[in-house]
Each structure stands twice: as C-alpha cells, then as structure tokens.
C-alpha cells in the first residue's frame, strides 16, 4: 500500500463530533451486552451532541447512558435492557415521563426495514407480527400487503434509512474494509442502510491483514466513510474474542443509573475525560482479565457437538 493511501478514511475518535450532527438519526450496532460502539457513544456525549434519533435493535448501556446524558431526541428500538442488572432506568424514566419520544419496533420488522433500504427497496414484505398491537400504532412503518400470486396477506415494513450508522468491528483497513470474528448482530444491515457509515474498531490494520482473513470481512470498504481506531471501543460491553463484557463496570453503572445524582456524576466523569483517560481510569490492570474471561469460557468437553 502506498503511503498516499495509508491514512485513507482513518480519522481520530475526536473527529466524531463533526461527523455526526445534532438531530440526526444514528443507528448503533451491537446487541444486548455485546459489541455496542461504546467509545463512539462516549465521544458523542463529550461532543455535546443533542437531539440524536438513536436506532437500536437490542440496546443496553449504550442507550441508557445517552438517555442519561441528554444526547437523545428520539429512540427507535425493539428492546432496551440491562438484563441481569434490570430495566434500563434512564430510558425508562424518559419514556414514562414523556420526555423521550420513542418508536417501538418489532425486532424482525426493524431489521427488515434496514434490509429494505440497504437493497434499494422502499419496503419489504414478510410474515409479520400478526396479532401484535405494535403495527397498528405505526401505520407509517407497518402496512398489510398481499402476494400478487397467492393472495396471502403479509406485513410490509417500510425502508428505514438512518443518516449515520456507527458500528464497532474487530479490525478495519484504511479503505474501510471491516472484519468481525464474534458477534456482529445488526451491524452490517445498519451500515448498508445508512447514508454515512462510521466504523470504530479495535485495530486499524494493513490491507494485507484483511486479505489474509477475507472470510471475516462483513462490510466492504465502499460502504464506509470513516474508520476510527478505538481499542476496547465496545467496553463495558463485550468484543469477542478480544474481551468479555465488563460485568463489574456494568454493575456499577446499573447502581448509578437509578439515581439521578449518581448518574449525573457518572456522565460528568465521561464528559471530562478523553477516551484514553476513560481506558486508564476504568481498565487499569483489568484489561488482561477481561480478555482472559474469553479464554476461560468453556465448551463442555467430551460432549458431542
């Protein structure tokens, strides 16, 4: 690779605030406690972005933290949960108080809406959530349609085009070719649907590394506008196989999240430090163990697979 292209699409995390504007719709990758683009979430908070229409399939600490920080103007989701640590207190408070406008999708509907946009369709039909109360709430998103051959009644879901998608990959090169080994969840569909795509990754690598692992490339570079190196960029959620979720930090988060004062402090700490500072503060001496949690995870030996 010639030096003229070495940097290509690579930008520092600090430029994220310029890449995402107030009021834009942003799809955030990952699911449950796996692989949310948390470094980007923290940076949006530091940049003071507001009015963001966040789109998540299964959000967790990413959505709750942005709700707490005042980043969100709208939340589209099919689930937001802190799982073992309970409901997401700040999302819950926002919706219950009416201060956070929201759209509740069904999970397949949300993914198929993203898929439709990504493949150039204004909608896609599927065997939808018949009997659910959700579609009738959103006639601009869900409609009924019929198969022109069999007459079967189906659910149509409208194409969903985020302004921006932010996803976290294992590695990417300067062209934006991005690879995942473990959980990629909804990341590829979000990226294919969005007008602009920002990939954060554990590591920016030479194109040669991408070629040698070509089967792991889930997002080719022509989709990608910016590549940001963000080690532990999914923390405190997981990025398997690099590190497991940081359940201890999540427990601290959950404890703070239910208390307005405590969560304000939690947010202020993030706002007043760099991402490097965050890593130093939170990971100090613990990064190796978070990686070892992955190594220690066991398949049941001797069992037939």
């Amino acid at each position, binding site marked *: 690779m010639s030096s003229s292209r070495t940097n290509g699409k690579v930008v520092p995390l600090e430029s994220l605030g310029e890449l995402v504007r107030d009021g834009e719709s942003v799809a955030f990758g990952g699911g449950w406690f796996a692989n949310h683009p948390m470094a980007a979430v923290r940076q949006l908070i530091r940049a003071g972005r507001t009015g963001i229409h966040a789109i998540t399939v299964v959000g967790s600490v990413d959505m709750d933290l942005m709700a707490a920080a005042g980043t969100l103007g709208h939340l589209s989701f099919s689930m937001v949960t802190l799982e073992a640590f309970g409901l997401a207190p700040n999302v819950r408070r926002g919706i219950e108080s009416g201060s956070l406008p929201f759209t509740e999708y069904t999970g397949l509907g949300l993914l198929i809406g993203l898929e439709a946009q990504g493949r150039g369709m204004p909608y896609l039909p599927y065997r939808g959530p018949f009997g659910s*109360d959700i579609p009738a709430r959103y006639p601009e998103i869900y409609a009924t349609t019929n198969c022109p051959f069999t007459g079967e009644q189906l659910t149509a879901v409208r194409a969903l085009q985020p302004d921006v998608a932010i996803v976290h990959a294992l590695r990417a090169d300067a062209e934006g070719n991005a690879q995942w080994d473990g959980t990629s969840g909804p990341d590829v569909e979000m990226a294919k649907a969005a007008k602009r795509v920002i990939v954060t990754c554990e590591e920016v690598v030479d194109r040669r590394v991408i070629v040698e692992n070509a089967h792991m490339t889930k997002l080719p570079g022509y989709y990608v506008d910016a590549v940001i190196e963000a080690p532990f960029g999914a923390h405190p959620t997981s990025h398997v196989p690099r590190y497991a979720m940081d*359940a201890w930090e999540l427990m601290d988060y959950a404890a703070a999240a239910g208390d307005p004062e405590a969560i304000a402090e939690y947010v202020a700490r993030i706002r007043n430090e760099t991402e490097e500072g965050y890593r130093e503060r939170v990971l100090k001496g613990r990064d190796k163990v978070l990686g070892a949690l992955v190594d220690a995870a066991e398949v049941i030996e001797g069992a037939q697979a």
Partner: protein
Amino acid sequence: MTDYEIHELMTCRVAAEVDNDGVTVMGSFTPLAYASYMLAKLTHAKDAYLVGFDAVGMAPVQLSFTGAEASAYKGAVCRWGMLTEINSIHLANHGGVEAVSSAQFDGSGAINLSAIGPFEAPKVRLPGGAGAAEVIKMYRKMIAYFGNHNPRTLVDKVQFVTGTRWKVGDRAREEAGLQPGPIVVVTNLAVLVKDEDDRPFRIESVHPGVDVQTVVDNTGFELEVPAEVPTTAEPTPQQLDLLRNRIDPFGTVKFDFVSGKERLSYLRGILDAEWDRAAARVS
C-alpha cells in the same frame, strides 16, 4: 429421590421439549432456557441445532454471565448475523423451540414485554420484545416460563400485546403456513399446555407438593382441569449432575429465583467466581 431446587425441575421440564428437529436460537442471556437447551443436547437431543449470538451450530457450553457469549463461538460451525438468522431460521420455518419469559402472559398465548399502563405514557416501561413478536408465532413450539406463578403475571388479558402465538391449533397453524406445535407454560407450580385455539390452557401436571387449586387460584386466566392431573417428573440424578457440575457450576440459573435483597450479592458471588477463574489465567 435426590434433593433438587425448583429451578432445576423447571429446567428439566423445558429441556424435555427440545428435540432433534429444527433450530433453537438463544438471544438474551436467559440462563434457565440456555441450561435447558444444553441439558437436552447432552442427553436426549444430541442433534439439537443451537444458535447463540451469531454462533451457528454451537457445541454445548458451560454457562456463565461473562463467558456465555465467548463459549458459544468456540465450538460453533458457522458465523451469521441477525438478519441471516431471522431469514434462515425464524421466517424459513426452521425454528424448533422458542422459550420466552414476559412481564405479562395471557390465556390466548399473548405476551406483554412493552408497557404496564398506557403505551404512550406507561406506568412501567418494559424492555420490549426484540424478535419475540414475530418469533413466538413462527416456531414449532412456544415455551413460556415463569419463576413466580401469580395472577399479576398470568393474566386474563395482557394490557398490550407485544406478540402472540396467533394460531394455536395444529390445523390452523398449518393452514397459515406455520409449523404445528403447542404452547407450553412452565412455572414454579405447574405445567400448562394449549394446543387448540378455542380451548383454554389445561393443566398438564403440577409439581410435587403443589395442589391443583393453588395453580387455579394463582392463574389469572381460565384453566381446563383434567380429572386426573399427574405430577411433573422430577429431575433425575444424571440431569442434576449435568446441571450442577457441567452446565451451570456457577449457579446462573438460580439467579432469577433469588429475591430482591439477596439478589445483588448472589450476582456478585457468581461474578467473583468468574473473575477468579479468569484472573488465574493471567497471573
């Protein structure tokens, strides 16, 4: 008879529904469901095809809060993403068993994971259903499990239908292009089954020591009570050994059965053990 705890009996009963046909997908870390699938795959359903996160064709794994995701990939034969999974499993009618737990569940097979109170300004905003709205309809068997069988959870009519089985009877399901199969509810008291649209859930069995009237009294929807109600099978020593020593040595399944005050310290206890095991590898 071996001593066992109620979550172990429930795990074994859910496991009994898992067979060698179709694909079972694990989404959120729901330890009881995960443990059931592993138990089935280690005993009577060795060819059960499991998908966890984006790991397709998993080997059975040991459960832990921080390690379940990583272990899913270690023995898996394939990697997909969410969209490929829903199109290749759920919507393609390859789904085997879908196990859910919800804030409210009613006698029609509907679940509420959305809101208690008005949808737009709820008293309690619930997490949402992820794919459950579509998936509980598509899968061959729908299982709902509840650690606390009471009429506030098992209600006459859910306040909001996040999703529903839609068609219940085998014939109605097949006419709609769906796989035939029942709804099975497994609680801390009993097993309830519904396999026809126009008939209520019936009590399939009560757990040892539970009387039928307790089940009826604690259920908010109508139940059909057969003349003879058998007792739910108890875990075998082999099942308990697998659960305690191989599948769930950290005790993650029990976590959902631990009540308010002890809950956090129970969780801390598990996480300490997980941390120690990992830390031993780096020191």
